[in-house]
């Protein structure tokens, strides 16, 4: 066996025209496959770091509204789930992780930390013991203890190491005792460095801000648990005397596996990419099969000699298999090397939203995939090579008269090439569609200006910006910032808001007094000058001004979407809306903007000043959302340092983070699309090159097979152009067949990823045609090169015996 393999190795080593393109094709395909497998293994397949993680379920609330995904519960409902549900062995509450926590160091320097609130039940449900110290106890939660759990990473950054337990940290202006260091495996999306005891206060009465995770009790099915939650919701609603929350058809309790909830958003793009790279791998197998077939045809004499000497026909099978196996091994190893080089680059362009990117690498589980991958590659290539193999006529072959004269066509090889063109067209169309979708998103009318604007996020987690002191401290800070930063050279305008455009913000319930109309809408607290800075047109009335301060008549500006939702658009001005028990007069209507993200259309939004906001609302906003700062002017984008220094000098307890131009904020919305475009385009280009190589290889095979025939034709007076046309005609015919088939198959493929595309339409047809044209040009080039080589055949060869 070893001798047999050794001989095949020696034989392959003497055939660079077979080995180089075959190994190259497989290296490209397998590198893509390994990278994708690494991403999928790291992001999706690696188990969650919690024991028996399949028993963990996320209990969410599904709103009727289509644009809102699964949400949390009201604080009261969450409490009832924790206290009254019997379906869970352990269940707990927590809040979304956010970066609004301010950690003040011994030198009074403040930094923002990603943290969350959680109760003892959540940590018990997850079942992950701390690395050091202890987790929260029930009394910590009940008594609102000023204790904290921190990550090992934060402990290291603070220079505390494993001795962090017992240390006191000043968090949001209050001293907290570190009672435990979280396990290194503790993972939430995004990565959490700090956990403080959950408190129901500050969650808002109607806000769906409390999330619930539970571990199912023994013998309880998810369906039974979900039914209990639905029943509990109805009971609580009846006890409270009102529906909880404002209900509508389609809304309700949903229980879903924790893994799906945390990793679900990553599944679709990664599955799409896996499908794409699967096509690429298949293409590579086609190439290998084609090359092995061509080699087998060219080696008929050698095979005939072996058979004449008594070799069993089964030996042919062994030869093809071993050749494909050796080529697959070499291809996979080269691909592994290529993937090892490329993976860091892929991770660098991957969207940060992709969870557990830090765990992506070429590790043992990924390497374990190589075995089935190599076996599949070998089997597919061998099978295709055997199907397309011609029987050897021993007598004719040994006489040297078994020429390619007629009959010996290779329909499978042609089908493989047509298949290659088809697959590459499908891949390229997908890439082009995603690219076009990204471009449409980038060209989306935002409704606000992004040029010459610098943005920053200021964390107002410190205690002085909370509760009773929130209004005074916040408004003083805002006034100072407007004054100081507005005086900077090259800065024309400064504004502050409760959140930046295109980022998640506050929702609140707004009603129209005297009617039963009400809705949960976006709420923005903004400083005067906000609309001017962003060039948001005022459609009716006026903008908010410095006169809209505490004590003066509550004034509200709404956008057109809000006017359409609750008011008649032409009578919106001067109408009255109620929020937090206060009646607000609509003093202006502004144009719609993309408030939440690029994909979602304009959301109904109301704008009020910080000064007129209810202190409780302001306190909640400060707790949950960093204050958004925007500066605009010719030198604004280069004024990051001044901004940080000014904030530091005015309020050392307020860290300024995420200082970046507004256009980067917009670009950040396209990271997923860009990632998909880069990978899909890379796969598409590789596929196209593999197809062109495959076509060229087939034409070269045809040229070799028909060399004598071409010489005869030339001897009979055929001009060179006729010979070229004869060969390229075949190539172009196969290309056209592949293009047509690819165009047809691309349609269902595009439909399958419609959800990922932004406003797909008929205009994309032009794009598909462009892809087909580009592919056709490259294929035509491959055929032309082979055709020109055919023109170099000497007609005198016709006189030679084949």
């Amino acid at each position: 066996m070893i001798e047999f393999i050794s001989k095949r190795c020696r034989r392959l080593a003497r055939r660079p025209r077979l080995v180089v393109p075959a190994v190259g094709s497989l290296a490209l395909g397998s590198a893509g496959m390994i990278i994708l497998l690494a991403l999928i293994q790291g992001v999706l397949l690696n188990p969650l770091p919690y024991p028996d993680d399949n028993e963990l379920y996320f209990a969410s609330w599904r709103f009727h509204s289509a644009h809102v995904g699964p949400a949390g519960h009201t604080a009261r409902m969450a409490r009832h789930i924790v206290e009254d549900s019997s379906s869970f062995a352990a269940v707990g509450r927590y809040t979304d992780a956010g970066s609004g926590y301010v950690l003040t160091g011994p030198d009074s320097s403040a930094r923002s930390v990603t943290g969350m609130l959680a109760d003892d039940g959540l940590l018990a449900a997850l079942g992950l013991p701390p690395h050091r110290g202890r987790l929260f106890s029930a009394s910590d939660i009940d008594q609102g203890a000023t204790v904290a759990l921190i990550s090992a990473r934060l402990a290291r950054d603070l220079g505390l190491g494993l001795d962090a337990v017992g240390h006191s940290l000043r968090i949001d202006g209050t001293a907290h005792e570190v009672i435990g260091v979280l396990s290194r495996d503790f993972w939430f999306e995004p990565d959490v460095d700090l956990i403080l005891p959950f408190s129901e206060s500050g969650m808002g009465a109607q806000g769906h801000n409390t999330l619930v995770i539970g571990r199912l009790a023994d013998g309880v099915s998810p369906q039974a648990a979900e039914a209990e939650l639905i029943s509990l919701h109805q009971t609580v609603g009846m006890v409270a005397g009102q529906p909880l929350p404002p209900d509508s058809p389609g809304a309700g309790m949903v229980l879903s596996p924790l893994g799906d909830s945390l990793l679900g958003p990553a599944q679709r793009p990664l599955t799409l990419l896996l499908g794409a790279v699967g096509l690429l791998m298949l293409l590579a197998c086609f190439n290998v099969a084609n090359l092995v077939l061509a080699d087998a045809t060219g080696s008929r004499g050698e095979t005939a000699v072996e058979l004449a000497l008594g070799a069993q026909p089964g030996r042919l099978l062994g030869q093809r298999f071993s050749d494909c196996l050796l080529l697959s091994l070499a291809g996979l190893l080269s691909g592994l090397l290529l993937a090892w080089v490329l993976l860091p680059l892929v991770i660098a362009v991957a969207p940060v939203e992709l969870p557990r990117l830090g765990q992506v690498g070429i590790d043992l589980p990924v390497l374990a995939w190589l075995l089935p991958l190599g076996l599949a590659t070998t089997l597919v290539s061998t099978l295709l090579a055997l199907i397309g193999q011609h029987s050897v006529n021993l007598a004719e072959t040994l006489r040297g008269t078994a020429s390619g004269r007629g009959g010996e066509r290779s329909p499978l090889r042609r089908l493989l090439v047509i298949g290659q063109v088809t697959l590459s067209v499908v891949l390229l169309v997908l890439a082009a569609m995603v690219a076009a979708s990204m471009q449409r998103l980038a060209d989306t009318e935002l409704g606000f200006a992004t040029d010459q604007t610098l943005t920053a996020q200021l964390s107002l987690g410190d205690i002085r910006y909370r509760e009773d002191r929130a209004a005074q401290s916040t408004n003083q800070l805002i006034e100072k910032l407007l004054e100081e930063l507005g005086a900077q050279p090259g800065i024309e305008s400064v504004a502050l808001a409760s959140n930046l455009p295109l980022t998640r913000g506050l929702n609140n319930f707004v009603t129209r007094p005297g009617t039963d109309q009400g809705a949960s809408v976006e709420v923005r607290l903004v400083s005067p000058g906000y609309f001017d800075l962003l060039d948001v047109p005022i459609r009716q009335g006026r903008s908010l001004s410095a006169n809209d301060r505490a004590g003066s008549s509550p004034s509200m500006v709404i956008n057109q979407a809000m006017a359409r939702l609750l008011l008649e658009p032409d009578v919106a001005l001067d109408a009255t809306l109620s929020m937090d028990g206060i009646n607000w007069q609509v003093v202006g209507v502004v144009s719609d903007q993309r408030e939440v993200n690029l994909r979602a259309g304009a959301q109904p939004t109301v704008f009020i000043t910080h000064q007129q906001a209810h202190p409780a609302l302001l306190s909640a906003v400060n707790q949950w959302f960093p204050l958004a700062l925007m500066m605009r002017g010719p030198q604004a984008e280069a004024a990051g340092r001044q901004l940080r220094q000014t904030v530091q000098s005015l309020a050392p307890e307020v860290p300024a983070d995420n200082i970046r131009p507004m256009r980067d904020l917009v670009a950040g919305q396209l990271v997923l699309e860009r990632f998909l475009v880069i990978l899909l385009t890379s796969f598409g280009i590789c596929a196209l090159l593999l197809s062109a190589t495959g076509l060229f290889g087939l034409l070269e095979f045809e040229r070799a097979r028909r060399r004598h025939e071409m010489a005869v034709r030339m001897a009979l007076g055929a001009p060179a152009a006729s010979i070229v046309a004869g060969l390229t005609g075949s190539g172009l015919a196969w290309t056209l067949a592949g293009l047509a088939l690819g165009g047809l198959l691309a349609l269902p493929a595009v439909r399958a990823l419609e959800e990922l595309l932004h406003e797909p339409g008929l205009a994309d047809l032009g794009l598909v045609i462009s892809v087909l044209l580009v592919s056709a040009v490259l294929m035509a080039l491959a055929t032309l090169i082979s055709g020109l080589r055919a023109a170099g055949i000497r007609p005198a060869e016709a006189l030679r015996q084949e």
Partner: protein
Amino acid sequence: MSTSEQDIIQLEDLSKVFYTDEVETHALSGIHLTIRSGEYVSISGPSGCGKSTLLSILGLLDTPSAGSYRLSGHGIEQLTQKERAAIRNRQVGFIFQAFNLIGDLTVVENVELPLTYRRGMGKQERRDQALAALERVDMAHRLNHYPAQLSGGQQQRVAVARALVGEPAILLADEPTGNLDSRNGEQVMLLLNELHAGGATICMVTHDPRYASFAERQIYMYDGQIVDEETMSRLRAEEEARIQALLGSRQEALAS
């Protein structure tokens, strides 16, 4: 086919040298040859004497290294590849040893093939000429057969029809009986005789003296040169003697 008494082929001091890495092979040297319209010439000689090289130059499949070649009165030295292809198509008809029919094409399509390289000829005209050529070689009953379905003799008759169909100035036959048994070989030779009787100019390369004698003029080649019959006989006798001497010395060595 032209039946004038003009010279079809005129070779003056023609030579051909092949160069490989470090070897210079003189395949032809000092060839002077004239073939007149309507002549039937055979070129014979032992293997490697340059017969096929000469034929490939005569058929414009290859170019001479030196000397002059005039075909139908026109020098061929300055012709482009395109012009050479056009002349091959219109003035030369090839008959190959291995027939060289194209396996993917039917009999009639094979015969039509040279005409498809001519511009301005309609499909029906091509088909008519092909049928006429096939009738001349008595193969009209096998129009739609493929070459693989024919015997060797039949394939060569089709190849002759293909050579005739364009009404060339000269037929060049390279060992036309080389792949045939004696019966089929003789039939092909009779066919060539018939064509010659009809006015065709034929130049045939063969190493078989029996078939060479079918031609009205026989040319002998030896080591790249044209020699007369007497010289040829002497050279062959000398060669025979050398071989016998070699065999004799070999047997003596074995006996001792």
